[in-house]
């Protein structure tokens, strides 16, 4: 009799505690649902595009170049710009770091480019791929191209992650090894990445100069045709896939991506505030998940995840905050 009574008491207490737990989890669930409900709309990217455009205009403000079909030859060309910006663009005031790296590595006098590699380490260690998100003119062009409506935009595909390793191979082979070892009789190497791949050079330098300069027009050949085919492919791919050049091909993005996990400017996700709604991962066009890794090498620090988070769990900045997740 006592045993049966005890069993009944146990069952009732389990039911009561289950009800309590259900109520608590329902409350939390409702709160999460409420917050997740706020995440349906994609945050605006136009403030960032404004900064990108301003930077592109400042660093390409040599108007005489566009009018006369020539390039700037002043002292500012001693300095590198942080983004991929061809120094043969008629408006360019500074030097492209990838072009400059190849020029020094391929020169007769030097085997390694300490000036340019030091610049890349300095910028990368401070801000990582923030440069890709805010200070790269070719990134801006791809951002704008992706806004063109298309019936089926590709967010990811089967070999997406594997293909992203290609940019590291391009960096090592075309930017470092070929200019270093494939030299002419005088011991000078060519900038192989610029020569065979760089679509920024074709778009920012090649097309305007060929259009404005008759001597250039008479000199075009198969290489110019190849580079235009590649540029066209990247333009078309940019409409369907978000930033295909940055994801798969850009050697500058490859350099900065290495620094993303340790850069001084960084993103943080507060595990206490995070409601695990997944809004940040859904908002990210580079397919990163800030909850798993706030400083993913693929993150271009565009800030969409921060804007999308309904709980304000994602923050970024220069200051150290020990209690937050990395």
């Amino acid at each position, binding site marked *: 009799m006592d045993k049966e009574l005890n069993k009944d008491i146990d069952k009732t207490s389990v039911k009561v505690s289950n009800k309590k737990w259900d109520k608590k989890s329902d409350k939390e669930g409702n709160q999460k649902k409420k917050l997740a409900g706020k995440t349906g709309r994609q945050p605006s990217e136009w403030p960032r595009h404004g900064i990108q455009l301003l930077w592109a205009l400042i660093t390409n403000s040599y108007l005489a170049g566009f009018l006369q079909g020539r390039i700037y030859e002043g002292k500012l060309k001693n300095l590198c710009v942080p983004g991929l910006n061809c120094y043969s663009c008629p408006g360019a005031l500074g030097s*492209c770091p990838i072009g400059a790296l190849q020029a020094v590595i391929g020169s007769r006098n030097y085997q390694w480019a300490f000036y340019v590699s030091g610049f890349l*380490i300095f910028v990368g260690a401070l801000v990582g791929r923030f440069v890709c998100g805010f200070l790269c003119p070719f990134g801006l062009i791809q951002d704008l191209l992706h806004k063109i409506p298309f019936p089926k935009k590709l967010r990811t595909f089967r070999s997406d992650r594997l293909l992203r390793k290609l940019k590291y191979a391009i960096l090592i082979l075309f930017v470092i090894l070929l200019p270093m070892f494939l030299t002419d009789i005088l011991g000078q190497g060519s900038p192989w990445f610029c020569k065979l791949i760089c679509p920024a050079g074709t778009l920012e330098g090649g097309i305007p100069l060929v259009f404005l300069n008759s001597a250039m027009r008479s000199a075009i050949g198969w290489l110019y045709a190849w580079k235009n085919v590649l540029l066209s492919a990247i333009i078309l791919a940019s409409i369907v896939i978000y930033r295909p050049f940055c994801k798969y091909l850009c050697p500058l993005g490859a350099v900065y991506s290495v620094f993303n996990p340790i850069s001084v400017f960084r993103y943080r996700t507060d595990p206490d505030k995070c409601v695990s709604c997944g809004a940040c991962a859904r908002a990210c066009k580079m397919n990163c998940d800030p909850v798993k890794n706030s400083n993913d090498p693929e993150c271009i620090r565009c800030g969409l995840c921060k804007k999308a988070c309904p709980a304000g769990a994602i923050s970024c900045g220069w200051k150290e905050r020990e209690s937050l997740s990395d």
Partner: protein
Amino acid sequence: MSRPGLQGRSRRIGLLLAAAGLCLMGYGVFRGEMDIVFEKAVRICMECIGIG
């Protein structure tokens, strides 16, 4: 999800690397690498535009 202290360590590594980058830049300038960059950048780069 989080490892306390990891962020601070990463940030310190970042600061150290930024300082190292500055030193490398200085060494490169001292070696005269800036002249190569300048010479390349003030002439139209035929390879870059797809002609050379």
